[in-house]
């Protein structure tokens, strides 16, 4: 029975608030079960003081028989044993009984309560039907007992007496009374809690405020506040309970901090005692009474207090289902404790704290594992992993401390230390004695032997790493891995260590953390050295030797490692290839000459700038650059690259991502675009086909950026395997010493074969070690070209004028040909362009860079056919220049050229004159044929000369007298002097040409003309054909006589003789003095034959009449183009002229003047009329050209006639032609004009006065 409870209270979860029961015990016992069951069924709202949030609370109670001793004595602060409510039970219904016994008992009960100051009581009166029956005799109204009790005890508080009706019956009435009772009990209980706890809290606060007073003890206060926590826990208010502990925690922490700041409290002394026990946290008991007692006695150490506090917090947190907060708090606690012990300067055995932390970590983890399932644990790794890692860390340092990590095993000193540490653990707690995997057992085992330690350590490490990986904390995992690697190194297992180190290194490199990179790499170097992986070791050493984060001594050490290996005389096959980028960086490459394009055989130098990263100067046996050779078929033309990207051609700068372990910024932004201009030129004429821009490094830019692949920087973890490809051609230099920093090395590049040379790889050989740069990027090329010798001739001044000596420049680009002594150019002479001999002709030889190399005199020998120019010896790819004076003879006129053969058998190309569109001058292409020593073919070159003059001639007649006029027009831009103008006739000696020119010298300015006139005089007969040559001397203005050059103009005049004279007379109408406009007048045309017919003329166009008289038919025609005259009647007609001198024919024609004034005579044309028979005879004439011309001319005149309406209307021509229409298609009768001079018109330009008609004039006046 509950009331028989013994005094010591077991502090368990089963604690309930104590309620005492007095009065009728039998009655209570009968009702106890229902009461205990029903009390917690309904929650009650608990309103809190100090503004704390109200809470719903299920009340339970521990019903205890009332005893005087249960009431707390003055000063007793215990809350757990505090009776919160006192109940008096009675079922008395008999007034007598009440008065005699029950009242007295109640009085006693009340008194004892009052003396202890307890006001939380209630009297329950139970009424049953049985009692009613039993006490039938002296019936009083049953309420009277209750009334009596109320009046006796509850003078002001009527609610302190409750009636319970028929509690054991199952009636609604009974239920109702139960409910009201329970409600009352709960209310009263809560009131009691509020009052008593409030009082307690007030006391507690008062106590806390006294903490600055001397003699205040934290431990005492701890016990008080913990009491409150217990009560909250008892009321299942774990949150509130936790708050109590947290407050204690904070208070204590503050004291420790204050201690650190110099503010010492006396009570802290006990916590500063040296640590003797480090058995770790104990979380398996709800309350660790052992430690609690220690605290109560003031004997607890800091670790004890912390452990106890944490165990309570842990218990409450687990009640609150917040296990992950436990782990977090645990880590904080452990860190904090270590710090606090340090702060308080508590003396601790070396390693003791490690033990404590290790055990505690595992204990917390065990506790958490105990209350969570596996899935929950796995999902919450992030909360536990910190503890795992911490435990691992501590075990490692313990292992190191106890000599369990070294290769040799622990020394005796280590063993002593181990024993001391184990002693501090004490005995295993009874809770875990039976557990196989208790932290205690683990630690003991781990410290007992090297093997066990390794097993436990690896287990923990791997667990921590796994967890880190699982939650994506890869960096943390790698750090654990690194620490594991260090362990393996200590154990002498570099192979396993390297794996972890490489993994860590990869991460540091990819994220650009230089110091960790350097550190890890140094550890790797150590591993590799131990493993004997020479190549890897050397590569790592090279990286380290160039690592600026290391001290110079360390760098020198690693450099020396490489050099000493290189110095070993191993067999040749055992060469080690290392990446050059870590050894030296190619920063710049320069070509001399800068165009990076030379002719074959020329010297091309390549200057490399290498930044050596080694700390000391390194002697290199050979530095070689392999070359890829590409025969360039396109030559220098064709597809040509935009010469050089750089502003400075011939220099290529290589950009490296800053220093060796710099931030991988290049990976962030990607490589920059490298653009190049591409021009596609047609190979034939070098014209541009297409042009464009190409990106040269698309393969780098378009590359997928894989997060796993670190950028291709020199700090990659394991440099790519480099292989030196043996190229056919290499640039080599022997024995170079590379100083730290920039070094300049000059190669002489091979340039024998024409083509494109691409530098591919660079290799530095140091003894057995080769540093290879597998790709030179951006690619570097140079070009070697070969050129045919090229001879060009160009005018020294434009334009070249024909007829005057002109200087032309010969330029010989020797190309690959070396001009030897005795080599000569053979120029075929031409009549039209002789080469003028000159006394001194110097040739200039200049180098490809246009520097003058040599000057020498040329010797020129001219024979009849050939001019030979002996060239001075000239090296290849040089330029030879000399000047020659040539004269292009102006062709003198319409000579028909005869085909000639040149000395070399070629058909001589006649200089063809043509009119050039750009200049009014007539151009002559003068070709030269030159035999060159380097070729079996002749070189044909053309020069264009321009004739400065245009010459025209004309025949003028005056009756029988003849004049020849020559017009010379200067079409050039030069002013000339014209002298000795002369005209000669070649065939007829008797002929005299009398000059009518007065001046001997004449100025002929640019764009001006000079006219010259000669009268032709003859003795016997005037020949019908004259072969004339006009000649003059000319020279540019203001030059002396010797500079005069002849100019000839040849022309031919035919049918010079005047055959007919035409006279016309206008006769006024009869009886009139003058003609009048509008009146017909007569036109008398008189055609007179002047000469006897010549032989040619007879044959040509005469025919014999039937009467034996030879006649020729003429056609006359009167036409007036200016509409002055109207021809009335026949305007044209045919006359038959006898072919004798002075034969005259007169024709009368009627014309009418249309206007008044001095009117010019109408035009009278006389034409030859060729009947069709004559035409047939003429047709076979080979000189069809002339005939066609005349035909067309004939047609034209006919057309002119047709335009004249008057003539057409008369149909005179028509009538002429109509008779012959049948013969159309065979031969038409034709008209042929006479040559100028054959017909002399006396009335040419004569005028006649025409008077206006007498009729009144009509004058039109327009006024506007």
């Amino acid at each position, binding site marked *: 029975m509950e009331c028989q409870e013994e005094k010591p209270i077991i502090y368990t979860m089963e604690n309930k608030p104590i309620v005492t029961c007095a009065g009728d015990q039998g009655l209570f016992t009968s009702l106890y079960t229902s009461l205990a069951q029903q009390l917690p069924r309904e929650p009650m709202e608990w309103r809190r003081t100090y503004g704390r949030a109200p809470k719903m609370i299920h009340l339970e109670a521990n019903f205890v028989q009332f005893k005087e001793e249960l009431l707390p004595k003055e000063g007793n602060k215990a809350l757990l044993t505090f009776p919160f409510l006192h109940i008096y039970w009675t079922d008395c219904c008999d007034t007598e009984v009440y008065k005699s016994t029950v009242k007295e008992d109640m009085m006693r009960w009340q008194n004892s309560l009052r003396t202890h100051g307890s006001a939380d009581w209630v009297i329950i009166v139970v009424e049953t039907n049985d009692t009613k029956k039993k006490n039938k005799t002296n019936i009083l109204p049953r309420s009277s007992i209750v009334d009596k009790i109320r009046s006796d005890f509850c003078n002001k508080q009527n609610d302190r007496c409750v009636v319970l009706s028929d509690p054991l019956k199952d009636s609604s009435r009974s239920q109702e009374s139960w409910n009201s009772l329970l409600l009352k009990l709960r209310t009263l209980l809560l009131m009691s809690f509020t009052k008593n706890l409030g009082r307690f809290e007030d006391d507690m606060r008062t106590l806390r405020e006294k903490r600055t007073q001397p003699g205040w003890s934290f431990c005492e206060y701890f016990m008080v506040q913990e009491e409150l926590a217990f009560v909250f826990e008892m009321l299942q208010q774990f949150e509130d309970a936790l708050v109590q502990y947290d407050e204690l925690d904070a208070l204590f922490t503050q004291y420790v*901090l204050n201690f*650190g700041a110099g503010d010492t409290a006396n009570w802290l002394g006990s916590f500063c005692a040296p640590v003797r026990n480090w058995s770790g946290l104990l979380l398996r008991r709800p309350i660790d009474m052992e430690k609690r007692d220690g605290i109560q006695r003031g004997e607890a150490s800091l670790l004890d207090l912390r452990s106890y506090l944490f165990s309570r917090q842990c218990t409450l947190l687990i009640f609150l289902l917040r296990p992950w907060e436990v782990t977090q708090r645990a*880590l*904080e606690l*452990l*860190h904090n404790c*270590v*710090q606090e012990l*340090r*702060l308080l300067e508590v003396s601790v055995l070396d390693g003791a704290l490690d033990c404590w932390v290790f055990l505690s970590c595992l204990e917390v983890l065990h506790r958490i594992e105990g209350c969570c399932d596996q899935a929950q644990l796995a999902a919450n790794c*992030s909360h536990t992993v*910190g503890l795992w890692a*911490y435990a691992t860390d501590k075990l490692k340092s313990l292992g190191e401390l106890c000599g369990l990590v070294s290769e040799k095993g622990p020394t005796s000193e280590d063993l002593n230390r181990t024993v001391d540490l184990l002693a501090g653990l004490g005995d295993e707690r009874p809770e875990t004695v039976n557990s196989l995997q208790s932290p205690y057992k683990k630690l003991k085992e781990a410290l007992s032997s090297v093997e066990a330690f390794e097993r436990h350590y690896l287990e923990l490490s791997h667990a921590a790493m796994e967890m*880190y990986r699982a*939650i*994506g*904390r*890869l*960096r*943390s995992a790698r*750090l654990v891995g690194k620490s594991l690697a260090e362990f393996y190194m200590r154990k002498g297992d570099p192979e396993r260590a390297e794996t972890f180190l490489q993994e860590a290194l990869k991460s*540091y490199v990819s*994220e*650009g*953390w*230089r*110091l*960790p990179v350097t*550190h890890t790499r140094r550890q790797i170097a150590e591993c590799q050295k131990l493993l004997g992986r020479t190549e890897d070791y050397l590569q790592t050493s090279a990286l380290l030797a160039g690592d600026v984060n290391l001290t110079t001594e360390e760098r020198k050490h690693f450099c020396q490692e490489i050099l000493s290996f290189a110095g070993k005389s191993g067999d040749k096959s055992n060469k080690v290839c290392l990446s050059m980028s870590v050894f030296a960086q190619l920063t710049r490459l320069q070509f001399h000459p800068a165009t990076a394009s030379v002719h074959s055989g020329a010297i091309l130098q390549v200057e490399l700038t290498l930044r050596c990263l080694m700390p000391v100067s390194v002697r290199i046996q050979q530095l070689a650059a392999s070359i890829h050779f590409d025969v360039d078929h396109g030559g220098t033309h064709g597809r040509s690259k935009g010469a050089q990207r750089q502003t400075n051609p011939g220099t290529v700068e290589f950009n490296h991502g800053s220093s060796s372990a710099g*931030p*991988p*910024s290049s*990976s*962030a*932004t990607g490589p920059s675009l490298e653009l190049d201009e591409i021009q596609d030129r047609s190979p034939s004429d070098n014209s541009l086909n297409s042009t464009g821009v190409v990106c040269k490094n698309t393969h780098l830019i378009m590359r997928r950026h894989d997060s796993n692949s670190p950028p291709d920087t020199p700090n990659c973890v394991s440099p790519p395997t480099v292989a030196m490809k043996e190229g056919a051609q290499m640039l080599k230099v022997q024995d170079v010493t590379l100083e730290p920093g920039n070094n300049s090395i000059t190669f002489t590049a091979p340039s024998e074969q024409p083509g494109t040379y691409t530098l591919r790889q660079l290799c530095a050989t140091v003894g057995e070690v080769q540093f290879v740069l597998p790709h030179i990027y951006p690619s570097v090329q140079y070009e070697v070209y070969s050129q045919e010798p090229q001879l060009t001739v160009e005018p020294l001044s434009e334009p070249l004028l024909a007829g005057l000596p002109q200087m032309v420049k010969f330029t010989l680009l020797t190309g690959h040909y070396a001009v030897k002594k005795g080599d000569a150019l053979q120029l075929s002479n031409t009549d039209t362009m002789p080469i003028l001999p000159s006394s001194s002709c110097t040739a200039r030889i200049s180098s490809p860079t246009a520097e003058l190399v040599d000057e020498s005199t040329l010797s020129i020998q001219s024979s009849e056919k050939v001019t030979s120019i002996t060239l001075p010896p000239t090296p290849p790819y040089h330029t030879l220049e000399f000047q020659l004076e040539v004269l292009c003879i102006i062709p003198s006129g319409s000579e028909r050229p005869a085909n000639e053969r040149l000395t070399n058998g070629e058909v001589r190309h006649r200089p063809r004159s043509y009119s050039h569109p750009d200049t009014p001058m007539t151009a002559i292409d003068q070709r030269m044929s030159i035999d060159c020593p380097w070729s079996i073919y002749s070189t044909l070159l053309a020069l264009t000369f321009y004739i400065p003059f245009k010459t025209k001639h004309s025949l003028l007649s005056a009756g029988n007298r003849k004049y020849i006029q020559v017009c010379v027009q200067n079409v050039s831009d030069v002013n000339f002097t014209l002298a000795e103008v002369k005209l000669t006739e070649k065939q007829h000696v008797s002929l005299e040409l009398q000059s009518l020119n007065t001046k001997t010298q004449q100025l002929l300015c640019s764009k001006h003309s000079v006219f010259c006139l000669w009268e032709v005089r003859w003795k016997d007969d005037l020949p019908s054909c004259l072969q004339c040559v006009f000649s003059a001397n000319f020279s540019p203005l203001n030059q002396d006589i010797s500079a005069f050059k002849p100019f000839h103009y040849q022309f031919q005049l035919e049918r010079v003789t005047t055959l007919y004279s035409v006279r016309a007379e206008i006769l006024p109408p009869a009886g009139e003095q003058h003609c009048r406009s509008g009146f017909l007048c007569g036109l008398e045309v008189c055609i007179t034959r002047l000469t006897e017919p010549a032989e040619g003329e007879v044959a040509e166009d005469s025919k014999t009449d039937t009467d034996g008289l030879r006649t020729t038919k003429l056609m006359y025609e009167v036409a007036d183009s200016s509409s002055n005259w109207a021809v009335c009647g026949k305007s044209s007609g045919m006359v038959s002229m006898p072919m004798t001198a002075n034969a005259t024919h007169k024709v009368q024609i009627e014309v009418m003047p249309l206007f008044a004034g001095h009117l010019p005579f109408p035009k009278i044309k006389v034409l030859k009329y060729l009947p069709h028979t004559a035409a047939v005879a003429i047709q076979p004439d080979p000189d069809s050209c002339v005939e066609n011309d005349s035909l067309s001319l004939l047609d034209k005149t006919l057309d002119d006639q047709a335009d004249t309406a008057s003539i057409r209307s008369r149909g005179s021509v028509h009538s002429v032609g109509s008779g012959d229409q049948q013969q159309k298609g065979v031969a038409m009768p034709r008209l042929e004009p006479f040559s100028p001079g054959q017909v002399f018109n006396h009335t040419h330009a004569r005028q006649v006065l025409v008077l206006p008609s007498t009729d009144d004039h009509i004058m039109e006046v327009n006024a506007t």
Partner: protein
Amino acid sequence: MAVCIAVIAKENYPLYIRSVPTQNELKFHYTVHTSLDVVEEKISAVGKSLGDQRELYLGLLYPTEDYKVYGYVTNSKVKFVIVVDSSNTSLRDNEIRSMFRKLHNSFTDVMCNPFHNPGDPIQSKAFDGIVSGMMVQTG
């Protein structure tokens, strides 16, 4: 006051890292590097819940026995890490926050310098001065 202050680029390489005492530099590098794990965890956690309006201050990243590591991330994902000695208990959260704010302001100034190439290590003297002011002054 801080024992180590680091600025880490978006791509997780250090833009600036300084620590006192210098002999422990390597250890701090490791610590800061490892702290990026937690920074990333926190950034992704924040990104999920709040979207754009987020707190730059990430709070205590993780404590170790000797140091406390605090984190801060700018909107451009540049991370600031401040390592404080665990024994330095006088430092409150607010002070750490203000240190970060100061650091961020100075960092912004550095970024505003037209001659500074974003992504390059910070070499600004002004920034160095601000950092020095926040570091533990040791002889």
